[in-house]
């Protein structure tokens, strides 16, 4: 009679079964085989049909077309581009245009969104109603509707350049777009930029040092006068030594159009206006929900510790609200970037418009071009969600959860 415990039965087969077929075991494996067979069949159909169809239309598959000459012009380019450049360059030009309208839109959307959120949270009854009306109207109209409204109705109704509306005599808005002064680099540009960069780096280092001192030794260091000196005083001093870093060239009305200054095309203005006001309505709701999610007791606890109202907001309320705000806010930024593809409706030369639109109709390489366009958007959104999951992980770690 042995009293030793029996060895547990070998679990290798069980584990393999679990890995291969999930909870359902061998049934799961069978389901997977059937599923793989169906996927394989669909894949085969797609490939063979696509091959046959391309042969009928005499289109050569592959990415060779990227090095061909594009042969069309683009009316807003951030990098030099002419009609004799390749389709690859068209792709880059379109991508940069998409990114620039997204970044500008995100900045304005955040600004408007926070202002509207503050309006809605304001104790003033009238102002909170105004904010609510704004949010309800903007959220319940399609974004394409708003883009077309700004482009076809508002901007088209503006006067021509000769009667353009002057904004303080430095910028002019007309149906040909917005003309703003353009900066021209002067003699002192390089030292100015160098000193500015130095100031930024030094201020960051100082902030790091101050936080370290606060957390390690409990010493408060007041850094803002130094930071102000570094960021404003240092460049100003350089300017006095080396001369003005840049001058502004003011736009002048010559004949029927403006000379000088830089022109922002009306498509860009309409798209930025529509995207930023549209996304702002969603951001306002997110910010409002985030601030309301912080319990009233937090404010009272801060006050009972003797913190001032501003300090309580800055140190207690906002950090907790940001935890709720940041993930959906990033989502809205991503939505804005994706919505910028609606530029194709008004002819702003973004990625979809110049690459999936014009280039596709010129070359007929539908599969490659649409795959590239979808791929780049997918890349942007996957990168963002990867960053967000790192952020969420750090947040949950720092909260000790």
């Amino acid at each position, binding site marked *: 009679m042995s009293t030793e415990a029996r060895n547990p039965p070998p679990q290798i087969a069980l584990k393999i079964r679990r890995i*291969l*077929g*999930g*909870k*359902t075991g061998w049934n*799961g494996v069978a*389901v*997977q085989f059937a*599923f*793989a067979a169906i996927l394989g*069949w669909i894949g*085969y*159909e*797609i490939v*063979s*049909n*696509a091959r*046959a*169809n*391309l042969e009928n239309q005499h289109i050569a598959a592959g990415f060779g077309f990227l090095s061909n000459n594009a042969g069309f012009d683009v009316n807003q380019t951030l990098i030099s581009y002419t009609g004799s450049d390749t389709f690859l360059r068209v792709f880059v030009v379109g991508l940069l245009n998409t990114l620039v309208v997204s970044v500008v839109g995100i900045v304005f959307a955040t600004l408007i969104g926070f202002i509207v959120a503050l309006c809605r949270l*304001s*104790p*003033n*009854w*009238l*102002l909170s*109603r*105004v904010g609510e009306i704004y949010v309800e*109207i903007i*959220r*319940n*109209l*399609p*974004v*394409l*509707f708003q883009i*077309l*409204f700004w482009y*076809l*109705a508002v901007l*088209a*109704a503006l006067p021509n350049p000769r009667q353009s509306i002057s904004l303080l005599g430095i910028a002019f808005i007309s149906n040909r777009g917005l003309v703003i002064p353009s900066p021209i680099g002067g003699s002192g540009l390089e030292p100015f930029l160098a000193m500015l960069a130095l100031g930024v780096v030094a201020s960051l280092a100082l902030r790091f040092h101050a936080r370290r001192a606060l957390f390690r030794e409990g010493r408060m260091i007041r850094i803002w006068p130094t930071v102000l000196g570094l960021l404003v005083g240092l460049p100003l001093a350089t300017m006095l030594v080396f001369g003005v870093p840049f001058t502004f060239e003011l736009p002048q009305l010559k004949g029927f159009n403006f000379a000088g200054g830089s022109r922002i095309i009306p498509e860009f203005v309409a798209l930025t206006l529509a995207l930023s006001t549209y996304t702002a309505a969603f951001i306002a709701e997110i910010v409002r929900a985030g601030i309301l999610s912080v319990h009233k007791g937090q404010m009272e606890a801060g006050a009972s510790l003797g913190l001032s109202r501003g300090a309580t907001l800055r140190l207690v309320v906002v950090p907790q609200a940001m935890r709720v705000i940041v993930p959906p806010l990033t989502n809205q930024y991503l939505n804005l970037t*994706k*919505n910028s*593809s*609606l530029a*194709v*409706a008004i002819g702003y030369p973004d990625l*979809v418009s110049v690459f*999936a639109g014009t280039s*596709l109709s010129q070359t007929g390489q*539908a*599969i490659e071009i*649409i795959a590239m*366009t*979808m791929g780049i*958007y*997918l890349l942007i*959104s*996957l990168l963002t969600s990867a960053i967000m999951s790192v952020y969420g992980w750090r947040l949950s770690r720092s909260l000790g959860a």
Partner: protein
Amino acid sequence: MSDIASSSFVRKDLLTERPAPVKTTGFVGLMRTRLFNSPTNILLTIVGVLLLWFTIIPSVRFLMVDAVWSGKDRAACLTENAGFAVGACWPYIQAKLPQLIYGFYPEAERWRVDLTFILAAALLVPLLVPRLPAKGLNAGLFFFAFPVVAFFLLHGGGIKGFGLSWTAGVLELFDDSIIGAGQAVLGVSKTSAVPPVLWVVGNFIVLVGVAISWLILPLTWLRDQIQGAGQPVWGDFAVTTVIVSLIAFGLGGGWRTGWRALASSIATFIAIALVIKLMGLDRGGLPVVTTNLWGGLLVTLVVSVTGIVTSLPIGIALALGRRSTIPLIRIFSIAFIEFWRGVPLITVLFFATYMLPLFLPGNFTVDGLVRALIGIALFTGAYQAENVRGGLAAIPRGQGEAAAALGLSWWKTTSLIVLPQALRHVIPNLVNSFISLFKDTSLVSIVALFDLLGSLRASFSDPKWSTPSTAFTGFAFAGIIYFIFCFGMSRYSLFVEHRLNAHRRN
């Protein structure tokens, strides 16, 4: 007793009344507490009044006061003819209204569109009012019967066969494709480096294909017999009715409990027969109106309703797939969902318009509207999957475990226990997705379909009505329509949310 009374002070006369507290309710109270209680607030109120003054007053002036209400062409809406600064040009909307609602749908056939709208409303309203009974039947009619009827109403045309012919046709196509694939592999095996392996695989696939063709032989033979007879539709209908009813009877439990299933199956088929007879589908049906003639609000509603009806099953399937423990299915669902959620809808529409036709057999053309619908269904399906997954995650594990303890299979647990609760949880989210779907339907105007926004844009180019205020009038009109639909849906979602959280209110 007496010393207490003597030492204490007892008031002999009444106090004078204190003034009433400051009123904090009503309009005056609102003004005191929320508008003018501090200098900052007074300043903010002034800012708010100015904002309203510069937006509301001009809008009202444009839409009502300065508007032109009647006229025949642009001349009526010009400032020099009207004698004042003209606001909205409503005769333009009046003239373009048929185009904005029906597109180029033939005038004589527009009653069909109206009938479809009425049918949809008659089915949808009882579905949305929680108090009304027979939700299951109602939902079945709206989600399954209505789309089919609406298709034959709007598009027209008839049918040449029924269930049996279609099944046989699809199976034949599938079988041909398998045999084709096998022969392609055999062809490759002649030039490849590993001929024996490929030869075996190719022959195996061909063998499977031949076996399937033998299996479906009775079906195809029956189909050929029916198609050869005088009344193919009704013959096919009768055979399909018998087969499906018998299967329902068998699955329902045979002689013991199958009668209910049999009765409901026969009732369904009688209803289908009535519809076929009523619309004359066996005799060619209504005159065909091709989809390139459709437009305006009709296309907007067709696209959004189809999107709503098709995206939900796709979403449920993907959500269940994503929660499955079977690796391949889970990975596929995750990849599928993240792919469609990561790209903008407009590239999906481009994909559906330019890329999808390349993936289909050359003799197989897909209608432009259907292509856009496929794209939208896949795109919205991925978003709905995430909503449904949220609902599934909210159901406690114990529910599934209790069902398993009762001996229910996975399918029964999911369809009877988990999904009904999960879907009820996420109705507000689903409705919010429907709102964004409704707004996103405007994007089909970019791929050359004339929805409400596309028709509006097309109407701007009519020289007969080109005035400075035409664009603003058109946008005001379309904006009001979009706003009514979206705002209505969002209020409904709030109402449902409120109802669902009734037990949590205090």
